[in-house]
């Protein structure tokens, strides 16, 4: 299958290794990956902060960039949820009926990574090797907007060497919430503290999730505390194999430049 990869603005700019891992994983599973060069952002941050008018050209660019793609995969529950639930609504409100219809059609072909692997490709064992103790945080938009359910857990359970430990109060929000993390920084931090306490209680080496944004928030907190536990995106774990071992163990926020080049 020819898969168009939507990296998302955040991953593209500050966590390139997540998109690279997604591409490597899909190629390893025998699919052709293309990266439409016109891609930028799904518009979610603008919509969720109240700039829905300003989001219109962003969404339009997204629709243009992926027009013609057979299937689109993205390593972000949150952005895929926005594509499914917000894009057409925003366009329609702006009177862009034609574009809204195109966005809807595009949304139907757009998948979050774990949903694509399990539902479309029908695989749970992607042949990964990741010899670490890992806990999984189900991000809110994966959980409640996309309803990915236990698909990420199915994928993680099939990873060789990986010890999966259950995260207490897993379904509680980590407190990221986009611009909420800045506008309501104190409340966001209080929520993050409880999330970190639960993560640390598992004694996991790694906390994983399907959203780089939430992981940047959680990882930033864990790094600030010098906790020794780090955050790694689900795609990076699934991309790891015996031949291409997972990134070097550091306690910096997992999202960082130095790990961008996962060996091919």
């Amino acid at each position, binding site marked *: 299958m020819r898969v168009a990869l939507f990296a998302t*603005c955040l991953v*593209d*700019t*500050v966590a*390139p290794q997540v*998109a*690279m891992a997604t591409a490597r994983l899909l190629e390893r599973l025998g699919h052709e990956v293309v*990266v439409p*060069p*016109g891609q*930028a*952002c799904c*518009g979610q941050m*603008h*919509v*969720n*902060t*109240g*700039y*829905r*008018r*300003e989001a219109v*050209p*962003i969404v339009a*660019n997204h629709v243009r960039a992926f027009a013609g793609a057979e299937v689109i995969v993205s390593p972000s529950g949150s952005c895929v949820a926005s594509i499914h639930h*917000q894009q057409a609504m925003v366009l329609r409100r702006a009177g862009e009926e034609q574009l809204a219809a195109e966005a809807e059609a595009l949304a139907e072909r757009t998948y979050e990574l774990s949903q694509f692997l399990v539902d479309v490709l029908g695989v749970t064992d992607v042949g990964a090797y990741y010899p670490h103790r890992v806990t999984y945080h189900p991000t*809110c938009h994966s*959980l*409640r907007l996309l309803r990915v359910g236990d698909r990420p857990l199915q994928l993680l359970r099939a990873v060789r060497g990986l010890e999966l430990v259950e995260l207490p109060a897993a379904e*509680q*929000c980590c*407190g990221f*919430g*986009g*611009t*909420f*993390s*800045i*506008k*309501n*920084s*104190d*409340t*966001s*931090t*209080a*929520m*993050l503290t409880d999330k970190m306490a639960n993560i640390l209680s598992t004694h996991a080496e790694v906390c994983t999730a399907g959203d780089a944004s939430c992981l940047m928030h959680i*990882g*930033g*907190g864990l790094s*600030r505390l010098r906790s020794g536990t780090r955050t790694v995106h689900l795609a990076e774990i699934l991309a790891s194999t015996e031949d291409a071992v997972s990134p070097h163990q*550091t306690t*910096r*926020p997992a*999202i*960082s*430049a*130095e790990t*961008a080049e996962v060996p091919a």
Partner: protein
Amino acid sequence: MTTAPERTGPTPLAPGAPRSGTTFLGLPTAPRGVGHLRGDRPFPDAARDALRDGQLRANLGHATSTIRAKRARVVGEVPDWEALRQAGKALKTATMARLDEHLLELERQVTARGGTVHWARDADEANAIVTRLVQATGTDEVVKVKSMATQEIGLNEALEAAGITPHETDLAELIVQLGDDAPSHILVPAIHKNRAEIREIFLRTMPQFQGPDADRDLPDEPRRLAMAARTHLRERFLRAKVAISGANFAVAETGTLAVVESEGNGRMCLTLPQTLITVMGIEKLVPTWRDLEVFLQLLPRSSTGERMNPYTSMWTGVTPDDGPQEFHLVLLDNGRTAVLADEVGREALHCIRCSACLNVCPVYERTGGHSYGSVYPGPIGAVLSPQLTGVEDNASLPYASSLCGACYDACPVAIDIPSILVHLRAEHVEAQEKLTPEAAAFKALAKAMSNPRLWRLTQRAAGLGRLLARGKPTMPPVLPPPASGWTRSRDLPTPPRETFTQAWAREHGR
């Protein structure tokens, strides 16, 4: 120590300020200067103080986790919960679409059965009607059933100003009233107080514990505290001539009103006094008697986490020789029609005040209800209060959410609270006449994100931020605002030398 705002009077009105705003259709919002829909400071500021209150955090954490578990258990045992939820949602949508017709039918039925219906445009008018009705009976005290509508309009303050003493009879409302405090939860207004704090309030304020001969033996067991409230109120129930209640539901086709409660204080108020005055928001009605079969299943399990609450009272007008012989129903607008005018936001009027959304909200659990500044806190309050007052009077509330969506899943009538929050954020942004720095930034970013070439340049510029990191894996922990909002508690990773699209293009020879 908790940080309850003083609740001595209504929100102050600045000199020269307009009494009320209007929507684009010219529909007035709830007036300023009366009632409790507006806080005196933005949510983030109030929340900052609440977050430091360890006792409050402990009380809330304990209470909300208890109720969450109870709710999950009793909702889990109902095999057709989702069908009930969808029926509830559709019933409310249908009700709103014909609200005027249903209200007129309700009025006809209540009147035909011996009740009197009054209409109130806003809080001031409702307060005046109730005060006049109480004065007409010649009494100077009333017993009250817990009611969000009367809290919203500041009825107690209005009655007190007229020399009438309102006695709150719901245990939590009593705790709040005796403690000179403000409610912080829709269902359990004193959720922010623990048993020891409640014991202290009772010992300090209840007449039965005063005087040299008083038996001040009051352990902090909930059962004993409830018994103290029983003793405190028993005589007041028996002597009261007038009761004031809200209503959980009103059935248009029959004129039936319903109050759902637990303690029996509601039954006392609805049964014993000669006169009953019910203040009800115009959105609380259902078209037919049969519709209650849905809501009487949805409400108790969602609110107290019980299969059914101990008491539900239903009455229609006046029943000879049984209960109050004079019944007044006050139908309250107070901004509700302004909410109704918003095609997205009107769904907030579907709320049946169960408070399930508060109990599952990670923000409410940590900040408590007072941070919201309105009698309607939590997720539903964050969409309802700004709409009742006009979004500019509660502009920080739509942002008081991480949009995690737990409220939507818990809502028994499936109100899409996150979508309304996002909608109200846009209403706020679009109401700004001047260009704010934030708006300027978002507009510039939007321009970049709409144009791939410009976006690549922007990414490259952002990448230059790594120079500030001086080769370290994270950015400096002290950055200027607004980035400081992030870096105060979280490291920010140093941007990479190369974006993903750059790396991909290089690898694939473009």
